[in-house]
């Protein structure tokens, strides 16, 4: 099967410091890949490179067989959903409902369809209690669920999640795990960055480690 994300010999340099060195990496749909690594090892950088937010100094990336360099951010966003490490930076509307409706309103989708989808997402992601609160004041877990909901509205084939377990208690983490499993069973591949070895071992199909700028497979 052709890999959905294919990273070939990618290096990334920042001010004479080589953050990633000759990284090769392939990810298929229907699998859950976890990436672990120390703080500052370049996990976020790697995610942002796969999302086309940062441009690699060397090497190529293909998404669904298409070179990443030829895709604009708005096209990438429809193929891969990205959860920022700092979720607060991807939530910006004045209310939960507006947050969910944001992209659809810009695309001028019919209001009846929009409100139906909002309802669906609010129920699925258990945001009922939060719906009228400004997203700014939501808890970490609620912010994350809201961000994942907005991402899924784009119908991506893949998710890249940057440290989604950080700041969640045991219960919320389990809920997140279940939710992501559900998403995976719908045929959406997952790449997750996490420090939580237990969580990672429980759910992932493959685990990679970033060390000294290289991506090493563990299994």
């Amino acid at each position, binding site marked *: 099967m052709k890999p959905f994300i294919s990273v070939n010999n990618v290096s990334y340099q920042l001010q004479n410091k080589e953050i990633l060195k000759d990284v090769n990496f392939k990810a298929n749909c229907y699998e859950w890949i976890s990436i672990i690594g120390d703080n500052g090892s370049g996990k976020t950088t790697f995610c942002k490179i796969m999302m086309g937010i940062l441009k690699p100094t060397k090497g190529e990336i293909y998404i669904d067989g298409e070179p990443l360099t030829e895709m604009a951010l*708005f096209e990438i966003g429809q193929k891969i959903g990205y959860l920022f490490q*700092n979720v607060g*930076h*991807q939530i*910006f509307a004045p209310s939960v409902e507006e947050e969910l409706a*944001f992209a659809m309103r810009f*695309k001028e989708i019919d209001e009846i369809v929009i409100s139906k989808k909002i309802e669906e997402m609010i129920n699925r992601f258990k945001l009922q209690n939060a719906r009228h609160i400004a997203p700014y004041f939501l808890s970490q877990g609620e912010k994350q669920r809201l961000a994942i909901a907005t991402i899924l509205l*784009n119908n991506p084939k893949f998710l890249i999640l940057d440290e989604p377990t950080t700041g969640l208690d045991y219960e919320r983490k389990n809920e997140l795990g279940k939710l992501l499993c559900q998403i995976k069973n719908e045929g959406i591949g997952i790449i997750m960055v996490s420090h939580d070895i237990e969580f990672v071992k429980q759910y992932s199909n493959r685990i990679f480690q970033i060390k000294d700028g290289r991506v090493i497979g563990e299994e």
Partner: protein
Amino acid sequence: MKSSVDPRIKIFIALCLSTSGVLFTRVDKLLVILIIGVIYGLCFNVQYFSVYKRIRRYLQLFIVIIIIQSIFNHDGQAVLTINGFALLTDEGIIRGISYLFRIYIIVLSGAILTTSNMRDILQAFIQLKLPYDIAFMVAIGIKFMPLLVEEIQNIFTSIQLRGIDINMLSIKKRIEIVSYLFMPVIMNTLVRAKKLAISVDARGFRAYNKRTSLRQLRIKHIDEVVFFVTIVVFSGCIYF
């Protein structure tokens, strides 16, 4: 030399550079100032690449300025006319270049300041007898700039990742996007400011009127030389 020059001297140089960049109007004078600025920048090890990156987006503006200056200024010889309408005049081009030089000079003087670390610059302001409150405010402002920039960039990126093609939007919708960019940033800034105020109070900021500093800047020989050279160079520029 980069670290050995006193930040007070750097502030002085930056003031001289930016003042002359604003006051002088003749393009040849501006060019001289720019060259002087570049030489200072080389001495202080300014990261020219990052300066270039910051300035790059103004290049289009520069062309627009040339055209506007040419259309509304009737002095000067027409260089390019379309249907008898002077689109480009030599005067317009000269003014456009002057603006470009000015922008470069001002960015350069900022870049020279950033070659000292923030703590030293703050200390320089204190020893120049600027009230500590104001110096502190300036320092905080500068320190939080990168955070704000990162935040705006991330929001902008995530708006695009939601599948919105910014280039295809109407002007009205683009303005709407800008409002989405700034709302959360202002929110975050206010909350951050509040937290900062609490933490600053908790550490006894302004508990006593007189503050002493452990670190003191001292003028060295090299500083005196640089200061003297700067005075000579800029007085030369005035009479030039």
